[in-house]
């Protein structure tokens, strides 16, 4: 080390200590770092919880609208599935997920691993716990509250969750007319339609049961749906009743079940 460098370093050392002692520099307290660390952790927990809730809500939308039944109905089914995906929610989840990753990179157990492990691990954890959360009745209850206008927030968020497109409908098949080879179909918003089954209609490999929730694919023309496909929901599915546009909301709406129609 040259004499000039040594002198520079000596000057620097003196300068640093002088600045520190001149009271212009104060040491942050331990509590400052504890508070910062706590806020960071809370931010991470909050971001994770929000992402988890939205993921479980997406799973609820998938379940409630029978979106996973669509691929079995061929090309048109895939098209309807693509068009019915909750894109806004997916974009929202992606945004919060990025924030979650950025927050988590502050922690050594995250930044010491390849990012792909963290990303895949978080996706796995979120999807599994989101699907499990969607199996509970939490979203159904919040949906009911939203329809009954008892929800102080996110009312529209839930009210728009169960959407029927013009070519995809959820409801119950109530009777079958052998002569016209058609079903009477009660859509979940209360509308009644005739579902015509042809040779091209993709039907399940077992007999359809009446008053059992089904997904019908096909456009409506003058109250008649020419079914491209029909698929029943999983057993014990609670069919959430969808309100009609402009319908007067009832104070305590409940999901309607097949047994209620029988009565």
């Amino acid at each position: 080390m040259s004499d000039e460098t040594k002198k520079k370093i000596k000057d620097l050392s003196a300068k640093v200590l002088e600045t520190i002692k001149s009271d212009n520099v104060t040491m942050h307290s331990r509590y400052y770092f504890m508070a910062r660390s706590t806020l960071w952790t809370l931010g991470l927990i909050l971001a994770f919880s929000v992402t988890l809730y939205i993921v479980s809500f997406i799973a609820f939308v998938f379940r409630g609208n029978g979106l996973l039944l669509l691929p079995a109905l061929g090309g048109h089914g895939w098209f309807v599935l693509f068009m019915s995906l909750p894109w806004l929610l997916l974009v929202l989840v992606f945004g919060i997920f990025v924030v979650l990753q950025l927050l988590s990179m502050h922690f050594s157990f995250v930044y010491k691993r390849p990012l792909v492990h963290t990303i895949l691990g978080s996706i796995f954890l979120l999807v599994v716990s989101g699907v499990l959360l969607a199996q509970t009745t939490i979203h159904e209850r919040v949906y009911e509250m939203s329809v009954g206008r008892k929800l102080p927030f996110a009312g529209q968020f839930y009210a728009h969750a169960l959407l029927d497109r013009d070519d995809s409908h959820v409801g119950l098949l109530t009777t079958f007319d052998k002569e016209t080879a058609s079903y009477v179909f009660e859509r979940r918003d209360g509308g009644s339609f005739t579902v015509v089954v042809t040779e091209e209609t993709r039907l399940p490999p077992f007999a359809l049961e009446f008053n059992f929730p089904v997904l019908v694919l096909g456009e409506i023309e003058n109250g008649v749906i020419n079914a491209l496909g029909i698929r029943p929901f999983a057993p014990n599915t609670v069919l959430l009743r969808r309100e009609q546009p402009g319908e007067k909301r009832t104070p305590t709406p409940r999901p309607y079940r097949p047994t209620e129609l029988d009565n």
Partner: protein
Amino acid sequence: MTSPECSNNRNGNLLARRMTEQTDEEIAAKVQRGDTDIFGVLVGRYESKIMRYANKFLYAYQDREDAVQEVFIKAYQNIQSFRTHDRFSPWIYRIAHNTFLNVVRKQSREKVHLFSTDQLFALQIKDQSVEERHEQKQEREILDLCLDKLDVKYREVLVLYYFEEKDYEEIADILQIPKATVGVRLARGRKRMKTIYQSIQTV
């Protein structure tokens, strides 16, 4: 009989000797308990290292001395965040790294990315072989010639490895990236360094 002046000198020497026997972490713990003067010992131990790091990392920048001064002031301000059961060296190098990156960002002459794709798919790395260690001296000389032409993300890893002689683990701690990413960046950085060196030679 000894004079009070002589006794003071002896006490001072004893204190200095005791300080040199203490580890960085022990000294840092004392600073945390409020002994500000002893922080000077840490400054003394690290100033030449941090200065050397600044001279290499901020090779083409003017404000290197100010940046180094800022490093120690930040270290003092944040000393309570240092966990004394960890090593002090990566901690202060981390502060230096962040401070130097801020200098680079402020002057906007080079691009500094928040995230890099090599953090995504870094694979397991093997330890350095004896042959590779022999090559180190030659590579350090080449690196010295190409410093200002290397991207920030490769320069930081190469400087820490060749000039600061940090191992993969320490570099990973300083840069807060996976150890495997350090290996990937070192390999790519070396490759680029050699390409740059060849182009310099041909000119």
